[in-house]
C-alpha cells in the first residue's frame, strides 16, 4: 500500500505553529524512529505477530508504568488532552489538532498508551465531561488525562452482550450510598484500573432502557473482585469483574437515577472509530501485500497462481479500505459530518486481517499447524487466533450490520416487546450466561 500513517500535507496546512510546537516537544522528550520505507527484511526482528498482548505480569506492569509516565509528560507539556476544556486540564483545541499530534507522535519511539487511552481517555473521559457534576469532573478528569488514574468500562455482562440494556447488576439505594451487586465481563484493563464506569439496574419494573443508572466505582473498594479471563488466543487481555455489595456514594452517580442509558450512549458514541487503524501495529504490517509476497517467496510459492489471485483480491480490498479511511479524514477536515465510513472501515478492518491470516496459513501449510522453528511461520497463530474477536468486540458484526441497515438505509427494526415491557417480565438468559 502506498499509504503511510503520518498526517498528509493538507491536514498540516494552516497548523504550522502547532506542528512546530509538537515537534519541539517530541524532539525534547522522545527519539525519532527511522523512516519506514515499507521494505521487508525477512527474518529480522522479533518473531511475533501479536494482536492481543500476552506479556508476563512483570513486563505488563512495566509497560503500564511507562504508559502512565508518558501520558504525564504529554499532560505536563500541554498535549495530554488536546481537545479538552482548559479548566479540567485540556488544551481546548480541535480534533484535527489531536489527529495532527497523533500523526507526528507516530514518527517517534514512545510508549504505547492504549491502556489509558482506548477506554479511559477515549470513552469514559468524554462521558464524564458530558454527564458529570462539576465536582466529579474536577476530581476525575485531570487524574485521567495526566495518567494518574486508569479507567475501565463495567458494561457487558454474561447475560447482556449485544443487548447491553438487558444488564442485571443491581444497585440499591441505602441513604447517601448505593449498594452494587452483580457480574461484569469482557472488561479490558480492569486489572490496572483505579476507576470503573458501571451500568446498573436500579428499577426492574420499568422497561429495560429506563431503569438503568451509571456510577463511577472505585476499583479498590471492598467487594470489587477482578479476575483475568483467559481468551481463546491464550492471553488474558480481558477480565471478569465481580461486584459484591460494593458501596458507592450517591455523588459518584453519572446522570440521573434511571437515566443511565443516555449516559451509556455517550460512552458508546465516543468509542473511537478505527479509522486509520489498519496498517498500524505488527498485525497490519504482517498482512500488507509486501509482507505476504515476501512470505510466498520465502516459502517457495511466489509463482503459485491461485495464491497470487487471492493476494490480488486481498490487496485490492486493503487498498480501497485505506482510501476510504484517508477520504474520511479529509472530509472530517472539511467539516463534513461523518457518514457510514467508520462502521464500514471497522468491518473491513476485521475482514482484511482475518483474510490475511488465513492467506498466510495457506502459504505456510503444516508449518502453521506445527512449529518447525522457521522465522515468520508459527507466529502467525498469534494473529490467526485473535481474528475471531475482530468480529465480536466493539459491537458484533451482526449488530454493526443492523445499525448500518437501520440508520443509513432506513430499514425497519425487528419488532419486539422488549422495549415496552417491564424489565422484570422479560425473558432473559440465565444469570451467569449458561443457556
Amino acid at each position, binding site marked *: *500500500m*502506498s*499509504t503511510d500513517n503520518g498526517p*498528509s*500535507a*493538507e491536514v498540516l496546512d494552516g497548523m504550522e505553529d502547532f506542528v512546530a510546537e509538537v515537534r519541539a516537544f517530541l524532539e525534547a522528550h522522545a527519539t525519532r524512529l527511522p523512516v519506514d520505507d515499507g521494505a521487508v527484511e525477512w527474518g529480522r526482528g522479533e518473531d511475533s505477530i501479536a494482536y492481543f498482548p500476552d506479556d508476563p505480569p512483570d513486563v505488563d506492569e512495566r509497560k503500564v508504568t511507562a504508559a502512565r509516565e508518558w501520558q504525564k509528560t504529554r499532560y505536563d507539556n500541554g498535549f495530554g488532552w488536546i481537545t479538552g476544556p482548559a479548566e479540567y486540564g485540556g488544551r481546548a483545541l480541535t480534533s484535527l489538532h489531536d489527529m495532527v499530534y497523533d500523526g507526528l507522535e507516530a514518527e517517534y519511539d514512545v510508549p504505547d498508551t492504549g491502556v489509558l487511552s482506548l477506554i479511559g481517555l477515549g470513552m469514559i473521559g468524554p462521558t464524564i465531561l458530558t454527564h458529570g457534576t462539576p465536582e466529579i469532573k474536577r476530581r476525575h478528569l485531570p487524574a485521567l488525562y495526566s495518567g494518574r488514574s486508569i479507567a475501565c468500562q463495567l458494561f457487558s455482562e454474561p447475560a447482556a452482550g449485544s443487548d447491553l440494556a438487558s444488564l442485571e447488576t443491581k444497585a440499591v439505594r441505602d441513604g447517601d450510598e448505593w449498594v452494587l451487586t452483580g457480574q461484569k465481563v469482557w472488561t479490558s484493563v480492569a486489572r490496572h484500573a483505579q476507576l470503573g464506569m458501571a451500568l446498573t439496574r436500579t428499577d426492574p419494573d420499568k422497561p429495560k432502557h429506563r431503569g438503568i443508572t451509571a456510577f463511577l466505582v472505585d476499583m479498590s473498594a471492598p467487594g470489587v473482585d477482578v479476575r483475568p479471563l483467559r481468551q481463546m488466543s491464550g492471553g488474558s487481555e480481558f477480565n471478569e469483574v465481580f461486584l459484591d455489595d460494593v458501596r458507592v456514594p450517591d455523588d459518584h452517580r453519572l446522570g440521573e437515577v434511571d437515566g443511565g442509558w443516555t449516559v451509556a450512549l455517550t460512552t458508546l458514541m465516543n468509542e473511537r472509530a478505527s479509522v486509520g487503524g489498519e496498517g498500524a501495529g505488527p498485525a497490519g504490517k504482517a498482512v500488507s*501485500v*509486501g509482507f505476504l*509476497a515476501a512470505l510466498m517467496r520465502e516459502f517457495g510459492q511466489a509463482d503459485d497462481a491461485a495464491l*497470487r*489471485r487471492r*493476494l*490480488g*483480491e486481498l*490487496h*485490492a*480490498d486493503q*487498498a*480501497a*479500505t485505506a*482510501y*476510504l479511511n*484517508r*477520504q474520511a479524514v*479529509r472530509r472530517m477536515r*472539511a*467539516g*463534513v459530518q461523518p*457518514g*457510514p*465510513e467508520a462502521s*464500514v472501515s471497522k*468491518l*473491513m478492518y476485521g475482514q482484511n486481517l482475518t483474510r490475511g491470516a488465513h492467506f498466510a496459513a495457506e502459504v505456510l501449510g503444516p508449518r502453521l499447524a506445527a512449529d518447525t522453528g522457521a522465522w515468520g511461520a508459527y507466529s502467525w497463530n498469534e494473529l490467526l487466533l485473535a481474528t475471531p474477536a475482530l468480529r465480536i468486540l466493539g459491537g458484533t458484526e*451482526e449488530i*454493526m*450490520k*443492523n445499525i*448500518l*441497515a*437501520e440508520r*443509513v*438505509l*432506513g*430499514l*425497519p*427494526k*425487528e*419488532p419486539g416487546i422488549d422495549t415496552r415491557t417491564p424489565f422484570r417480565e422479560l425473558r432473559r438468559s440465565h444469570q451467569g450466561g449458561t443457556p
Partner: protein
Amino acid sequence: MSETAGQSELDDLRGSVRDFLSAKSGEEQVRRVMESETGYDEAVWAQMADQLGLQQLVFPEEHGGYGFGFAELSVVLQEMGRALLPSPFLSSVVLAGSALLAADDAAAAAAHLPGIASGKTIATLAVAGESGSWDPTALPVVGTRADDGWRLGGTTWFVLDGATADLLLVAATTDAGPSLFAVSGTAAGLTRTALRTLDPTRRQARLDLDGVVGTPVGALGGAAPVLDRVLDLAMTALAAEQVGGARACLETSAAYARDRVQFGRPIGSFQAVKHKCADMLVRVQLADAAAQEAAEAAAGLPGRAPLAEAAAVAHAVCSESYLFTAAENIQVHGGIGFTWEHPAHLYFRRAKSSQLLFGGPAGYFGRVLDRAGV
C-alpha cells in the same frame, strides 16, 4: 478551488445530469433504445452535448472542450451507470478521447477531438483479439507500409460501439512496434459485425480489416505507453459507472425491503434481508472510495494514490462490488426480480459485462499485484 467549493459544484453537476437522465433515459427509454439498431438515442446524445456539454467536459479548451478533469467526469459517469444510459460515451469520450490526448499528436488531436467533444463524431478504440487481452505485444491487427501510406489487416474483437462509430482508433503491430492508427468507419476493406451481447445497453463489434487505409496517430511504435495510460483512465471511468450502478441496486433493494411485506412485516426487518442490504452498503462504500481515489488521482489532485495503483484497485473493487450488489438485488426482490419486466437483470447484465471488459478478473487482479510491485 477549495475542496468544499468543489464539492458543491460537483453536487450541482450530479443533480443536473440526474435530472436530465431521468427525463431522457428512464427505464422505458432504456428498454426502447436497447432494442434499436444503433443501440443509442441520437437525439439524447446530441442534447447531452448541446444542453449539458457532457462530451466536452474533459477536453482542453483548445480542442473545443471545457477543460475539466476526471473528478467532474466521474460524477457524470456515475449518473450514466445509475441510469444504465445506452450511449457511446465510454468508447468515444473516454477510450478514443484519452487515446488521442495520450498519443501526443497535435495534428490528430486537432483533426478529431473537436468532433468528439461536440458529439458530432463518435469514435472508439480497437485493441483486443479474441482473447480480450489488451497486451500491446499481442495485437491482432498488423499494419504494413504501402506506397501511399499504411494498410491494416486482421480481426479485432469486442470493440465498444465499433459497428456505429465514425472514427476507429486501431492498435496494430508494425515493424516499428505497436502503433495506433485512425481509420474511417466507412473505409474500404472494413467489415463491421455487431455481436450479440450479454449487456444490451452496451454494444460490441468485431472488425475485419482487409487492406484498410489507416493514418498513424502518435509516434510509430509508441502505442504501448498510450494504451497503458488509456487503460488506467478507462478503468477509472468504468469504476465510476460501476459505482453508480451498484448504488442504484443498493437503493432499489433498500426501498423494496422497506415496503415489501411478508409474514406481516416489512421484509427489511428480518435480519437475513437486513444484513444482505448492509453487506451491499459496505461493498458500495468501499467501491465508492476506490473509484473516488482513482478519479482524483487521474485529476491530478495531491495526496492521492498513484493513478496506476488506484485505477487497478478501483477496477477490481468496483467490478466485484457491482456484481455482488446486482446479484443480491435480484435475491432481495425474489421472484419479481427474475422477471424480464423488472430492471434488476439489466443491472446484472451490465455488471457482469463490465467486469469482463479490459481483460476481466485475471487481468485486474494481476494488474493490482503488478502495480504493488509483486
